[in-house]
Each structure stands twice: as structure tokens, then as C-alpha cells.
């Protein structure tokens, strides 16, 4: 039993059999998993990291999991976790680079959602690096707006009062934007309407039934939008607009 195994066993030992693990346990498991990854034991690293992922999340965690899958040669799972990380922080350059590299090994060539730099910048701005960023900003702006409104009423000096009123109006505008972004972000991360194909090869059919007419074929690693689901079948949509039904078991939602 070498040092790595002891490290890992110690980290596991701290984790009780109960489902949820606590934050300190998760932190030590993350450190242990990353040590295993650095030492080259990718399977061991993956086991440790996936234990955390059940309850905790972070872009760095998803990057580690994706890398471990990639090193083990499992491209679709690697893409899945890189995408999950990008959902948390769309501006993460490491995740993006690794996702793109993994995508280059996917058979199906599907255009990415935001290929233009401007559109990407906008998405990054709207999503923020932290999922709670806009909600937190909304809280601050709400407080500032209210303070400005109150002070505008209390100030006797006419120019100062005017300035306070303008500032309050601007803050209120920013507040509205923040709330809108926060709501969009919340919806984005809560809805999970994209999925990665896990099956090596799968027909998309015209109807949610085995034996229906096959419309197109997707291979493992392809990213699709899930529009609807019914009786264990998902209706998927490709960026070019093609729509077909696939068994839900053939894919994993991001």
C-alpha cells in the first residue's frame, strides 16, 4: 500500500456511508482525487471525484472529471463533464479548450451554439463566472437603489437631490437587468435541456417507438438539444433543425 492509496483510503474513510458528504470531506476527496490524477491513476481519481460530484460541483471539479474520462479514453463522458463545467462557468478557457479537443474526436460534426466571438462574449457576460453572481448583484443593487431613494427624499440641496434621483434610476435599471440575467441563468442551469449521446451509434426515429422510420444517425459524443420526452424516449433537435426521437438511455443530460 503506497502513499497514494493511503491518501485515498483516508479520504474515503472520512466519508461515511450516508449519501450526502460534507463540505470538508468533499474538499479532501477533491484533493485526493487530483493527487491520484497527477500520479497517473486516472481510474482511482475518477472514483474519488465522482463521489463528490453527487453532491458538489465546481468548474475545476468538472475539469478534473472530464480529464480523467478523457485519459481513460471515454470521449462522450469527458465531453459531458466539460459541458457541465462550462454550464457553471462559460468563460472557463481550460474547459473550453478541452471540450473542443474532445469534440474533435466526435464523428458527427455539429456546429457549436455560439461560434461568433460577440455572441460568446454576450453569453459569458449573461451567465457570469459564478452562477449566483447576478442574484448577488441584484441584492446589492436593490439595497443601493433603496438607499438612494431614501436619501433623495432627505437631501434638501437641490443639485444633490437631483443627482441622487438620477443614480437611483440608473441603479433601478441595472437591478432589472440583474434580475433578468439571474432568472435566465437559473432557468438555464435548472432546465438541463441539452444532452450528450452516450451510445456508440444510435438512430433518431420519426416516432418514439422501436421500428419507426430512422431519420438520422448520431454517434457517441454528439451534443443535442432535448425538446420533449415521453415513455423513455427523448425528442432531440440538432443545430441544423433536424428533429428525431431517441431512447433516453442513449444519452446523458448535461
Amino acid at each position: 500500500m503506497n502513499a497514494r492509496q493511503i491518501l485515498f483510503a483516508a479520504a474515503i474513510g472520512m466519508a461515511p456511508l450516508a449519501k450526502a458528504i460534507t463540505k470538508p470531506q468533499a474538499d479532501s476527496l477533491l484533493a485526493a482525487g487530483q493527487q491520484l490524477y497527477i500520479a497517473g491513476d486516472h481510474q482511482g481519481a475518477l472514483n474519488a471525484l465522482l463521489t463528490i460530484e453527487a453532491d458538489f460541483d465546481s468548474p475545476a471539479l468538472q475539469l478534473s472529471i472530464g480529464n480523467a474520462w478523457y485519459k481513460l479514453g471515454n470521449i462522450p463522458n469527458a465531453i459531458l463533464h466539460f459541458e457541465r463545467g462550462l454550464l457553471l462557468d462559460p468563460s472557463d478557457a481550460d474547459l473550453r479548450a478541452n471540450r473542443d479537443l474532445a469534440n474533435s474526436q466526435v464523428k458527427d460534426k455539429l456546429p457549436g451554439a455560439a461560434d461568433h466571438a460577440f455572441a460568446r462574449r454576450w453569453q459569458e457576460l449573461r451567465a457570469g463566472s459564478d452562477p449566483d453572481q447576478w442574484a448577488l448583484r441584484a441584492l446589492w443593487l436593490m439595497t443601493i437603489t433603496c438607499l438612494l431613494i431614501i436619501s433623495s427624499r432627505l437631501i434638501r440641496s437641490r443639485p444633490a437631490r437631483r443627482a441622487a434621483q438620477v443614480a437611483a434610476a440608473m441603479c433601478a435599471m441595472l437591478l432589472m437587468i440583474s434580475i433578468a440575467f439571474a432568472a435566465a441563468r437559473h432557468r438555464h442551469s435548472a432546465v438541463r435541456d441539452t444532452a450528450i449521446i452516450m451510445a456508440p451509434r444510435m438512430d433518431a426515429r420519426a416516432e418514439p417507438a422501436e421500428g419507426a422510420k430512422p431519420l438520422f444517425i448520431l454517434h457517441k459524443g454528439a451534443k443535442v438539444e432535448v425538446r420533449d420526452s415521453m415513455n423513455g424516449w427523448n425528442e432531440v433537435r440538432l443545430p441544423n433543425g433536424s428533429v428525431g426521437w431517441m431512447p433516453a438511455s442513449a444519452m446523458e443530460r448535461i
Partner: protein
Amino acid sequence: MKYRFLIGALAWLIASASVLAQEITFTASVDRTAIAAGDQLRLTVTLANAQERFTAPDLDGLVVVAGPHESSSFNFINGRSTSTVTRTWVLTATQPGKYTIGPARVKVMRGVIETDPITIEVSKGNAPQGSADVQRAQQSDPNLFIIVSLSKGKAYVGEPVVASYHVYNRYSSVEQTGSTPPQLNGFWSEELDASQARAEDKIVNGLQYRVVLVKQQLLLPQRPGKLRIEPMTLSCVVNRSFFNRGTPLDVRSNAIEFTAMPLPPGAPADFSGAVGEFSLDLQADRTQAKAHEAIEVNVKLSGKGNLKLIEAPRPSFPSDFEAYEPKVNDRITVNASGMSGSRGFQYTVIPRHDGRFDLGSLSLSYFDPKTATYKQLRSQPLVVEVLPGEGGPSSAPTMTMRTDVIDLDHDIRFIRTGDGLLRAKGKHLFGSWPWIAGMTTPLLLVLGFLGWDSRRQRLAGDAEAMRRSRAEKLARHRLRQAADALKSGSKAEFYSALSKALHGYATDKFTLGAAGVTEEALIARLTTDEGRTAAKDYVKLIAACDMARFAPVEELPREELYDQALVLIQQIDRIAR
């Protein structure tokens, strides 16, 4: 009887040696009585002083290798003549056991003389009696055959095996006219020099052969499994001599089976088929050079094994190095013990940029058939220090070939450690109760404040505004009273009304207390120049009124005071609007 005769004859011979020199003797002797199977012994039968032919002894299973050779001598000394006849056989035994050479007989005038029988003890020899292949070949043609033999019957893939082709011959002369080489499927073969081999005599099953090594090959099995060496055929002419054209003969060798064992599993990644024992060396002719100067990097693989079949690992030169195809120097000797020597790869590289370049170390794995294990070789690392070349970067600006950075390869970016800000899953700030509370609390607070403030302002604002708007009206009313008093001529009433009008207007208009009507207070509210003079006049007027009210002296006529008050009030009302 013969003993008696012999003893008698011997006694007689000794007694009268000088009397009768021409006594007949007949003896048989061997050079040794105990041999190993396959060894040879010499049997000599000598007859002295008689010319009769004698019969050969019974050899009892001993095989004649050579002979009989006959020799005779005749001496005549001092009138006495002696003669001897000697016959010699070279004998051998193929099987161990006890053999008895029977008596040889000769008929002389006085009767028959016999030699003594000789017992030969043949022990089990260590000389081979010939393999099954030889026995079989001997059965098909006992006079001429070819035997192929391998140094070992099974070996690992890549392990050297020597195949020897021996011609067994009993003819007096054999001339080779042609041959077809053996088919070697699954082997890599290398001819060995067999010309130095000496012919030797060998006895197989009692037959003497002249055995010549005609061909020898070093074989390296290339694939595992049962491999077969197909027969070799040899065309020759035998018994050719001056008088004889000879007889042509085709001889086929035996076919031979060989088992090539597969290499055990678990070969290291850098194993490329090397089998044997090797060493690896990585060297440069210098480890310090200037840029644009050629360096020779030598990779030398030496040892014993399938050298010719393996490639030495190639050093990975940095992209700043210009590397040419290597020059291969092979110093490999092939003999019956295998291949040995060295393979050298000489790379000429030209560093195009200064810096310290780590070429790393080379590694090569080989399979050692002696221990049946894989072993890994690792050369010592090589570091090359390249100094700035002629006209280094510090000298006058030169044209430098600017090139883009070359992406050698792509790989995933490494994991990030340290920024482990883990978040509990599914917990969002947006929409959570604390967030909603945090958002609504300031909103409710501000709404409450606004309600309280507007109510306060409404209450406060109403009273003052009323006072303000009513100030002029009230002042007019009081001025009218003053005008009435002016007409009636009542001094006290006039001044009282005028003073009240002035005081009241100021207090109402500027929300001041009764004692607050001072010049400073008015100037603070009437900030313009006109307002300042008006304020001064106003305060002066109030003072004049108060003075006239309580003192008997009147400085100005009452009408003038009244007009002044009217004008000032109108003026201040206009300014303060």
C-alpha cells in the same frame, strides 16, 4: 594340447635358441582389451618363419573398420634367415558387451598352429550411436546421405539456432555438382562459413563414414509455432576417377521440425523484438557547441542477439535542431554462437538556436531468453549546451528567419488544483428564501419611508405653505387697518397695525418665530443684492415703527412710513417668490 605344444615349443626355443633359429611362431595380439563402444582397437596377427597363408580369426561381432593390412619382412643375418608376415585389422564395436576374438589358424608342415583367443571388454561408449534421423537415412542409402541437425529443438522467437548440414559418405570420392537450398519458412537465416570445417571419420552402426560439414546456417525464428525445415537436396557424382566417369546421385536430407516458442506476455511499451543481451549507449562527439555547428550524436546498440533485425531507438531532437538521416555503422559478426557486435547510428544535427537542450535518454527493452524475462535498457541522458553562433544576438542586427511557433501536438489542458471552491449542488441563490427576503426587505423599507415622509411633508408643507400664501393677504389686511388709523389720526393704532403687518408678514413668509425677524435672518433668505437692501430697509422700517410707537417723537410722517411699508412688502414678496 596346443598349450602343451606351445609350452614345449617355448621351452625348446629357450633351450636351443642358438641351435634352431628358424622356429615357427604364430601370435595374435590387440593393442588393448577394453574399449568403449565406438572406439577402435588394432588386432595384429603375426606369423614368423613360415610362408603359409593363415585364416583370419573369427571376430565375434566386432566390425572391421580398416584392414586387413598385410606386411612382411625378411632378414638374413650371419647366414641365418628370419621372416615375419603380419596382418593388421582395425576393429570397433557398436554395442557394449564381451567379445571374443577366435583363434587364427595356420597349417604348417607339422600340423596346425592356432593363436590364443582374445577377450575384448566393450563398455558403453559416450560416442553417439547416431540419431534417429541418421539411422533412418542410413537405412535408405547406407553409402551417402545428408543429415540436418539443429543446435536446439526449441527456442524463443528471435533466439538464434544453428542448423548444420553434414554429408555422410562411404564412397571413395564425391563431387558435388549442384544443390537446392532448404526451404526456410518462418526463419530469418544467415549463412555461416563452413569451409573451415574438417572432415572427420565417424562410425555409425559399424559403418565408417567420412563426415563433412557442407553448410551451416544461423536461423532466427520469426513467428511462434511449429516450423519445418524442408529437405535440402544435393546432386553429386561418386566414384569418379581417372578410369571411371562416376555415378551421378541425388541425395535428399531429412526434414526437421522446430518449435518456436512465443515470447511471454507483458512486453514493455518500448519492446520492438530485440532478443538476446544488449547494451545501449547515447553519446555526442561534444556536448557544447556553437549554433550552426554540426554535432554528431551516436546511438550504439551492442551485444549478442538478433542485432540485424532491430532498430535502435531514435533520439527526439528538438525542433530547433536540423537532423539528418543517420549513417548506420554495423559491426556484426555472425558465427555458430549467434550474432554479436554492434549497430551504430550516427546522426548529424545542426542546432539552429542557442540554449540548453535536453535530448533525454533513450530506452529499449529486450527479451533475455536465458532468464526468459524482459529487461529494459536506458542510456545515460544527453544534454547539449549550444552557445550563440557566429554573430550572436548581441551583435549588429542581422536578418533572422522569423518563424511561427510550431505546435508540436495538442493535448488536453491539465487539471486545476487549488481552486476547489466546491458548491453544494442544486443550491441557487436566485429564488431562495434568503434572496427573496433580501430583495423585498429594502423594498418594503423604502416604501414605508416614502409613506411616512410624504405624510410628514404633507402635514408640514401645508401649514407653512398656508402661512406663506396668506402672509401677503394678512399684511394687506393689517395695512388697511393702519390706513384706517391714519385717516382717523389715532397714532397708537396706526403704529400698532403697521408694526403687526411688518412683523407678521416676515414671520409668515419665512416661517420665522416672532423674535426671529432680524436683518441676518432676512438677508439669509433674500440672497440677491436687491433683496439685501430690501431686507435692511425692512428691518430699519420695523425699528422706526417700534420707536414711533413707544416714543413721542416721530421722525417721518405717517403717510411716508405707510407707503414705504407697502412698497417693501410688495418688493420682498416679488423677490421671495
